[in-house]
């Protein structure tokens, strides 16, 4: 009799719990990663793995519609841009709480931005916000706060820039501007990255170093119906081949590092597995930089000849057709991409002719740097062989990534660099992110990432003018302006664009949602808030 009563209570309890669960997120999904997650601090985390996880724990003023590159307000309910284009006034939405229960106020946004700017934080995103009025003085220690960020009241914030920046809203959508609670940062200090507290869809439930990270649903998340799962478990330390075996056994739902290269063809040729693969583009271009300050690459005809000597189809074949050959600088998803641009064709005869015209009928010798992780040495060797056909003898230096980056950023040291494994995926879907960091005069400095050392002052001025076009009605003209700018750069051929990598995400059959969230160009690699179990 007693036990029957207990059993009834137990059953009721289970039913109640189940229904509570079913209203919100349901179930647990398992994601595999090889490397340990370095940090979940939004001001610091900047790698492939933690980018989307941080977006799941924290929020910014703006976000993108899932699976797309379209901006939308997020923590900010609405915003107004001033007539001179330099000031943005944000009204925060109400009812947003941090995971520790405290409501969000405008002061928190100011605190978070100042924290990213603060040199003590050593944030990789600091440079994005140096354009805010007063930021430079703050960073140099001459001011105690950033005067350009004004808290007007509990829910209103105004940010003023030194000069208008059409990409500033994108920069505010980056992780580096996501909002953190001051009291938790002060409590954990430098260990905040291992004890993240934000406003996001998920809370950190458990982190066993080197083994697993578990996120659980935030029941008070301000977006109704999100997230759609109860828990996300990240299994760390799994070799991609082993992760694949686990996937086949149903122990892993998502391969965080992608389909292992060895299994790629097998997956794509099996109809059952193929249907579980989401394919998408990313904001990526792989290219060879031609150092315009090193002879004989300082001769434009030589650079154009090299552009015509590479068989890009063959290189794409080498990586199992996981990319599309590239003829221009911008990737297809980027505004400003020129659909009908033909670029330099693959033409060995023309290449040899150009070389002869430039004074090198018998070719010349040069050096190509590449990263030593697969498949980059192979791609470098393919490029080496292609150039040998027009008489250019390339010596290869396949070195550790840090060494290549160092050499490429040293004036006069690296004539050619294959960017694979190191560069360039855009931080945000705006064309100026493909100009300023990697092709501008400002970046052609020691330690910069303009490894072609290309500097055209006219284009720097033109880009600045384009970035000043902030108003919505100017956007079409701005995009057209950048399209022309990049075409102009290709005329000087400081790069050989090789391919644009595509994204392939394999997911288990029990995961639902449109393909686009599995190859989300912003929430890389997967948008965890949108995923659900069928």
């Amino acid at each position: 009799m007693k036990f029957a009563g207990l059993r009834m209570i137990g059953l009721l309890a289970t039913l109640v719990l189940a229904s509570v669960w079913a209203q919100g997120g349901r179930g647990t999904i398992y994601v595999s990663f090889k490397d340990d997650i370095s940090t979940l601090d939004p001001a610091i985390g900047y790698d492939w793995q933690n980018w989307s996880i941080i977006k799941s724990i924290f929020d910014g003023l703006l976000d993108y519609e899932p699976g797309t590159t379209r901006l939308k307000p997020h923590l900010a309910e609405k915003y107004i841009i001033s007539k001179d284009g330099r000031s943005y006034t944000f009204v925060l939405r109400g009812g947003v709480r941090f995971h520790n229960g405290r409501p969000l106020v405008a002061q928190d946004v100011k605190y978070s931005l100042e924290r990213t700017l603060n040199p003590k934080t050593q944030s990789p995103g600091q440079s994005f916000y140096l354009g805010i009025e007063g930021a430079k003085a703050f960073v140099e220690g001459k001011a105690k706060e950033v005067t350009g960020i004004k808290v007007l009241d509990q829910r209103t914030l105004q940010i003023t820039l030194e000069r208008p920046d059409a990409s500033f809203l994108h920069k505010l959508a980056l992780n580096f501007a996501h909002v953190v609670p001051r009291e938790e940062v002060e409590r954990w200090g430098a260990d905040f990255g291992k004890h993240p507290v934000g406003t996001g869809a998920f809370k950190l439930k458990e982190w066993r170093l080197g083994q697993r990270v578990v996120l659980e649903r935030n029941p008070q998340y301000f977006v109704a119906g999100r997230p759609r799962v109860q828990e996300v478990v990240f299994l760390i330390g799994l070799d991609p081949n082993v992760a694949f075996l686990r996937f086949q056994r149903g122990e892993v739902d998502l391969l965080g590092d992608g389909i292992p290269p060895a299994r790629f063809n097998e997956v794509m040729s099996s109809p059952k597995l193929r249907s579980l693969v989401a394919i998408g583009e990313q904001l990526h271009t792989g290219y060879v930089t031609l150092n315009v300050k090193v002879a004989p690459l300082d001769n434009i005809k030589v650079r154009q000849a090299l552009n015509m000597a590479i068989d890009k189809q063959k290189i794409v074949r080498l990586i199992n057709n996981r990319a599309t050959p590239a003829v221009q600088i911008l990737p297809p998803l980027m505004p400003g991409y020129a659909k009908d641009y033909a670029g330099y064709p693959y033409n060995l005869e023309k290449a040899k002719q150009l070389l002869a015209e430039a004074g090198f009928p018998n070719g010349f010798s040069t050096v190509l740097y590449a990263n030593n992780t697969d498949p980059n040495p192979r791609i470098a060797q393919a490029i080496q062989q292609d150039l040998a056909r027009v008489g250019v003898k390339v010596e290869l230096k396949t070195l550790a990534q840090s060494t290549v980056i160092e050499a490429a950023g040293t004036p006069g040291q690296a004539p050619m660099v294959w960017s694979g494994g190191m560069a360039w995926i855009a931080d945000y879907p705006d064309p100026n992110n493909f100009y300023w960091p990697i092709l501008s005069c400002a970046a052609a400095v020691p330690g910069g990432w303009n490894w072609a050392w290309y500097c055209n002052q006219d284009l720097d001025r033109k880009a600045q003018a384009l970035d000043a076009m902030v108003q919505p009605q100017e956007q079409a003209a701005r995009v057209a302006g950048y399209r022309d700018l990049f075409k102009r750069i290709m005329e000087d051929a400081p790069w050989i664009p090789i391919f644009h990598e595509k994204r392939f995400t394999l997911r288990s059959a029990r995961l639902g949602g449109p393909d686009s969230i599995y190859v989300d160009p912003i929430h890389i690699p997967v948008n965890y808030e949108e995923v659900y179990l069928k």
Partner: protein
Amino acid sequence: MTIRYFLGRLFQGGLVLLAVATITFGLLYLLPADPARLVAGRSASPESVAMVRKELGLDRPLYERYVRYLGGLLRGDLGRSYMQRTEVRELILSRLAPTLQLTLLGIFAELAIGLPLGILAAVSSGRIWDRLVTVWAFAMVAAPQFALGLLLLYTFGYLWPIFPLGGYGSWQHAVLPALTLGLTGGGWYARMARSSLREVLATDYVRTAKAKGLSPWVVLGKHALRPALLPIVAMVGADLGVFMGGVVVVEAVFGWPGIGQLAWQAIQQVDIPIVLGVVLVTAASVVVGNLLADLMYTVLDPRVRYT
């Protein structure tokens, strides 16, 4: 072994660690890579990189950085990772236990597989078993642990799921990694046991024992094995240290949360504090391993005396 000798060895060990720390510090300084640039990331302006360099203390002269580091070591502070900002001590400690466990299990497996085979080879000297064991020893030494590990995982974790597919937590998780280590490393022990035992079997005093009419098993067990095991003990001592650095591949294949992976990632990112920490821990384990081996020596061979 006297207390005085033991303390002397500890002191020497400390000096060795100091030397290792110094050499590593120098090597890392010479690396043609700039940690500040890597921490500041690809989007940082030169000013941002300079600020990061100042925060990390990398703009100070080398000797100042060295002295600060040594000072920290004395306090037990290994610094903070450049990339993760987590304390190196915490990172290493969290991964030390799994690596130690794998080390002990691996050495046990190597001995369990290698010793019997080596003894077999020595006893059947010149004949078929001897040849087979030698060939096996070489095959295993040249075999990539990666391939063998994956093969075992695929066979016993996937096709016939007796064991879990990698990971850490129970003794079942440890069987396949230990087996991989035992098979690939057992060859060394087999060869060492074989050559060492053969030498001992050829000595006068063993031959005398045989001539006295004692059964070959008694000769083996009572007279030959003990001295033959001395070099093995030395190998185990050295192995302890090698393992700490050398199980990266097995850890990677089986997803074993050990130090190897930590070190490998840290080297790629030029995360100097972690690299220094791991090197010191590895060197310390070598010193301790050798000391333990020497202790075992005295147990095995009373003739060996340390003063």
